[in-house]
């Protein structure tokens, strides 16, 4: 336990200090993207990694969070940060019925169902123009003033955004850690192994999965809110896309399913590859996502961090 506390503290300190290492805004952007991707991976992992329910539709929750945040600010004048939290809550609310429907299915059928649900949500967002402005998307020109310790925060630079995403990511990792040590976490692992056995052990497998999904969706929803405020523009193809859902799967799988730290590794990989190839080939980075996914599944199914952790004896839990 204390080994974990030490690591956790070091990570927190590193996170706090990182942006101060340089004044280069591009570097700050990279850090933000790494943390954003980490949060997505962490959130996906709660459901996908721990309970083995592979969702290809998580972008639905991201989009719900993003649109909620934008619309609450643009149409009702809410503070965008309040909207962000509300976006997470809304995504959580939406996740429950989706889960109750989709969890009747197992394995790949579940995955396909999530894909179908996400596509339906995307198509609705695309076509319900009176609500979402359809393919035009939504734009936020500048963020309202917010004062911290008497000083107005300058939202034109990247550093404040960094701290917001850092807090959210730490929150996600904290939630993951707490769950992994709790009864819920144990139940999730049982569900991943064998649903019938889990039921026979007295575990309510539907409720267990719905709770995991709800937590996962809440985190992704808040990430969506962040996306909206950082990029200031969203449209259905950006936030509801299948590609985004697959990226989340990638981050968690490459990093290490069912580990707290795995998604960071996966996120670093993803963002690094993204940036290297963004200049040269337009979507060349996707080639490497695909390739890496294949290599990892074949040779390192427990993920990079999963394998490292096992080798370094940081955990006795087999992937």
């Amino acid at each position, binding site marked *: 336990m204390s080994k974990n506390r030490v690591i956790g503290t070091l990570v927190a300190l590193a996170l706090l200090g990182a942006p101060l290492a340089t004044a280069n805004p591009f570097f700050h952007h990279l850090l933000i993207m790494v943390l954003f991707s980490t949060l997505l991976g962490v959130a996906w992992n709660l459901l996908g990694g721990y309970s083995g329910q592979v969702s290809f539709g998580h972008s639905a929750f991201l989009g719900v969070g993003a649109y909620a945040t934008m619309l609450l600010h643009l149409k009702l004048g809410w503070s965008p940060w309040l909207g962000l939290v509300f976006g997470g809550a809304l995504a959580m609310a939406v996740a429950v019925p989706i889960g109750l429907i989709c969890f009747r299915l197992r394995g790949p059928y579940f995955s396909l169902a999530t894909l*179908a649900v996400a596509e339906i949500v995307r198509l609705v967002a695309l076509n319900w123009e009176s609500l979402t402005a359809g393919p035009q998307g939504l734009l936020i020109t500048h963020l309202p003033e917010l004062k911290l310790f008497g000083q107005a925060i300058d939202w034109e630079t990247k550093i404040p955004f960094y701290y917001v995403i850092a807090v959210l990511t730490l929150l996600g990792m904290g939630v993951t850690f707490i769950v992994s040590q709790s009864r819920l976490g144990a139940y999730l692992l049982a569900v991943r192994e064998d649903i019938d056995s889990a039921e026979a052990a007295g575990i309510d497998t539907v409720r267990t999965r719905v709770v995991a999904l709800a937590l996962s969706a809440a985190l992704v929803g808040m990430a969506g809110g962040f996306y909206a405020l950082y990029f200031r523009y969203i449209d259905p193809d950006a936030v509801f896309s299948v590609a985004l859902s697959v990226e989340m799967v990638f981050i968690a799988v490459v990093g290490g399913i069912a580990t707290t730290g795995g998604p960071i590794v996966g996120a670093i990989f993803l963002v690094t590859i993204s940036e290297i190839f963004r200049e040269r080939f337009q979507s060349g980075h996707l080639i490497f996502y695909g390739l890496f996914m294949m290599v990892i*599944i074949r040779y390192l199914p427990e993920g990079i961090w999963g394998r490292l952790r096992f080798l370094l004896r940081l955990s006795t839990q087999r992937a």
Partner: protein
Amino acid sequence: METILQSVVSGVLMGSLYAMIAVGLTIVFGVMRIINMAHGEMVMLGMFGAFWSFTLGGIDPFVSLLIWMPAMFAFGMFVQRFLLGKIIAGGELNTLLYTAGLSLLIANLALLFWTGDYRNINVAYGSPPMRPFGISVSVPLAIAFVLAIAITTGLYFFLSRTDTGRAIRATAQNPDSAALMGINVARIDMITFGLGTALAGAAGVLLAPSLYLYPTVGEILVVKCFVVVVLGGLGSIPGAIAGGILLGLVESLGAVYVSVAYKDTIGFVLFLLVLLFRPSGLFGAGRT
């Protein structure tokens, strides 16, 4: 009345191609119990194969079927033997993720080499369309329809009349018993995957003169074909055929009577409903 008839005809023609792609997907599932997320990319490869042999070699796309179908068969066998074969033992989840990765890889390699520009093939007989009984029928699509039926019928005879075909059906029913009977299951898996890929590629070739071609077309196609396969019952060939035609009809009529925008949604909603209430397919033919 004419509009309905027109919709129905278009729907059936398109549906026959969906059916062919879905049959490829369903035999792979029936025999190997895997869900191949890269199936759509196989169709895409067939499409581009036809495009390049037409553009660079002047070969009529339907004639190029003779080149591409065996080529895709070989490619499928290669994928199974060297890539997928080792993954299947890792479980359904791993196989799903692996084939998702493969799908990303193939689609984006294609994007890299061939760019995202929309291409199309203009064959001499592409227009004007035929007008039997006042209904407009595109000539290439009609030819595709006929060939799709021919190929699917050929597959049917292969599966029911030849030894290899019977071996495939036996493996689909029970791989362990099949192995005990002396069937080389690894070889059957290779042949089955080859066949599935060949069907997908062939469908791509047949569709090439009728659609706009772009490397990421596989994404939407694979989802649609899963809808078909689930509608018809996973593992059932007649189900896949019926399901394909049904989807073609639903989309065609949906575009006219509901809205063009939401026509794709109808398929997905139907899909969810079937998964929830009749997971063995509308006709109860599938295995769950």
